């Protein structure tokens, strides 16, 4: 292109149709609009908080909280600080989320497999389960479990007994639970060492096989370590490192065992059954995504059935399953914030109480939102790392 034509084309384009100028103008306008709105909002907020004497500082976190928390996994009493109360809420959220995730995954897998069953009846029962849970609001489900079931349970004397034994009454769920005895520490240590060593052996031996082509029996070796170490620990600790702690009725209440409050139980059951319905669909989609030809091709290559499953079907299904599965886990964690309405004191509920007690709406609120955001971001970072590893390098 000669200089003369370039100048001519420059002359032909008026500035209001020049893409570069238009872009810059759009940028400036949008930046000005967004920044002005932000500025107005923040200026307004600062002015109002000045008037009411509620500056945006976090010094109040060290003040005594002064409100009781019924359920706490870390030591807490009302004389402790707001910051401590906040931590209690965070731990409560994490506990219910982690237990919910651990329970809802196998339940979801089970329902998802039932949904794929060739048995018409099993298939339809699974469908009914999924459709019921997917089409009603979680909040209504939580109300059904908490107000409809748990507050209507009989008192401690007439508690229902489920196999286990598990006792269910108005005060909650009482589970028989193994507890460590005095020598239990040795056993626990041996279990942890066994698991770590098994993972290490798996990684090292597998790499040796992959790089040197030698059969190292990594699966069997890891399994042997996994069984052997706890066994040794069991005998070293004198044969009785664990004791079944069975709840027993004493007076008007149960003692011993593991107690779950009605609020926690209702929330856990509601979250688990609700999320399991979504997870079931995730698993179903993942299994259906592996084409039949893949299995047939693997068989034609002479792979054994367990190898077809472990080398062909599961890796491909996981690739489809993992991302939506993680987002369901995240949903479960975020949904646990609904607990405040049935009285389980997790992060959001405690944030709300703190706002009332400390009278500092915005700082507390920012903290709550930032915590949830952090949880989400951490999960999505992990998800992305995993995703990069399992996705095809080239499609």
């Amino acid at each position: 292109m000669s200089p003369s034509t370039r100048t001519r084309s420059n002359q032909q384009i008026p500035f209001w149709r020049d893409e570069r100028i238009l872009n810059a103008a759009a940028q400036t306008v949008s930046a000005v609009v967004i920044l002005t709105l932000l500025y107005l909002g923040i200026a307004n907020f600062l002015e109002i908080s000045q008037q009411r004497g509620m500056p945006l500082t976090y010094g109040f976190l060290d003040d005594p909280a002064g409100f009781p928390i019924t359920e706490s996994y870390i030591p807490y009493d009302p004389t402790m600080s707001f910051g401590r109360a906040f931590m209690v809420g965070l731990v409560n959220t994490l506990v219910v989320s982690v237990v919910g995730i651990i329970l809802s995954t196998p339940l979801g897998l089970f329902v998802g497999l039932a949904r794929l069953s060739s048995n018409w009846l099993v298939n339809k029962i699974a469908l009914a389960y999924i459709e019921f849970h997917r089409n009603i609001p979680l909040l209504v489900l939580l109300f059904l479990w908490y107000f409809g079931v748990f507050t209507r349970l009989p008192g401690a004397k007439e508690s229902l007994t489920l196999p286990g034994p598990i006792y269910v009454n108005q005060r909650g769920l009482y589970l028989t639970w193994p507890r460590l005895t005095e020598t239990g520490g040795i056993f626990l240590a041996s279990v942890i060492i066994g698991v770590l060593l098994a993972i290490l052996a798996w990684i090292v031996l597998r790499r040796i096989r992959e790089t040197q082509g030698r059969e190292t029996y990594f699966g069997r070796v890891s399994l042997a370590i996994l069984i052997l170490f706890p066994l040794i620990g069991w005998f070293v600790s004198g044969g009785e490192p664990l004791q079944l702690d069975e709840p027993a009725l004493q007076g008007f209440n149960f003692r011993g065992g593991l107690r779950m409050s009605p609020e926690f139980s209702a929330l856990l059951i509601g979250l688990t059954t609700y999320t399991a319905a979504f997870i079931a669909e995730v698993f179903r989609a993942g299994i259906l995504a592996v084409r039949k030809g893949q299995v047939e091709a693997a068989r034609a290559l002479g792979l054994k059935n367990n190898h077809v499953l472990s080398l062909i079907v599961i890796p491909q299904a996981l690739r489809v399953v993992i991302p939506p599965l993680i987002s369901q886990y995240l949903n479960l964690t975020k949904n646990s914030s609904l607990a405040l309405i049935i009285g389980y004191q997790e992060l959001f509920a405690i944030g709300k109480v703190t706002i009332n007690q400390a009278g500092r709406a915005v700082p507390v609120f920012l903290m709550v939102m930032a915590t949830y955001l952090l949880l989400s971001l951490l999960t999505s970072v992990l998800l992305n790392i995993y995703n990069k590893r399992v996705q095809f390098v080239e499609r």
Partner: protein
Amino acid sequence: MSVTSETLAPPATLRPLAWLRKNLFSTWFNALLTIVSLVFLYFVLAGIVRWVFFTADWSPVTIAPLLFLVGQYPRDQLWRPALSLLMCVFLIGLSWAIWERYVKAFAIFLGVLLGVLALIPLETPTITLGVRAVFLACPLLISLAFWIGRRSAVKGQHVGTLWLLASILITLVLLPGIRSIPGLSAVATTAWGGLLVTLLLAIGGIVLSFPIGVLLALGRRSSLPVVKIFSILFIEVIRGVPLVTILFMFSIILALFLPAESRIDRLLRALIAMVVFSAAYTAENVRGGLQAIPEGQVEAAKALGLSNFHITAFIVLPQALRLVIPNIVGQFISLFKDTTLVVIVGINDLLGIGNAVLNLRPEFVRLQMEVYLFIAIIFWIFSYFMSYASLELEKALGVGER
């Protein structure tokens, strides 16, 4: 090859016995599963039937049906929601004629349900003859509209326009809670409640969040860094926190950020929160569709001399949206279910009315199961028909068969 023969075999030719053997008793394991499920089903169904018809006390639901429908809406102004209902029902009838595949099931169900509701003998003074007449008119109106809609002169565009007009009319004239209109007294939104509020929040949220979501999705893919960063921040922050926190923010915290004189209505604040929340999720769904459009489409459009606006509006967006309709409908269903969270900020939606009814009389204290189950069924019905329509749409568009 067994796949083809299976797909070719018409299932209708299987006789009952053969069907039983194939689907329930093909192997001993299958037979065992069938028997176990039958026993399970028997106990569950027997328990449910016994409870529903003998143990349960449905009086909290039957004592105040109008509360569940419209909340505390002034009883002398009831003609306004009634007229809105009739308008909607008429348009549903028209839609049935035009988009038979998606709306038929819902239209028939709604007509039958309202007709039955009109005739149920209830001894509550709130259900006057007028209310019954309105309900009874609904099935008639649906059939009339269906009959009109079958005329070839009525096109989908007309019905769409009518829906738009009706929604403007309903929100501005019939249900003015925000602004008083001469001749029509304002009804404060604090009096609104029940299904009316739930549906308003859901439909309002869906209609308003969709364009914002599309804009955010386009913004996230924009070449302008300011717009892009703002869109990403907005979407990720909103998606990272629970809806409760957003509702709470708009209901309580936002008041701190705005000047004292600009007070926004409580219901409107909740609606804004729903819209903001839903828009972020819609944006991510739409972005998925945008990413699926090959670059060649844009290049071809550029080669034809289309402007950026035209490329987006007529080439990229129509294809992208078509791809993600099922996801967006799924998002709308969850928005509809999420409207229940407004009880947390003190709005009497369907669930809030349920709570209020339980406090009406001391003997209702132990009847939560009945009330919440009733509410669950209402939500279930609406969500089910939405996902049904979405499935049909998916089939019609062939999205699943790629």
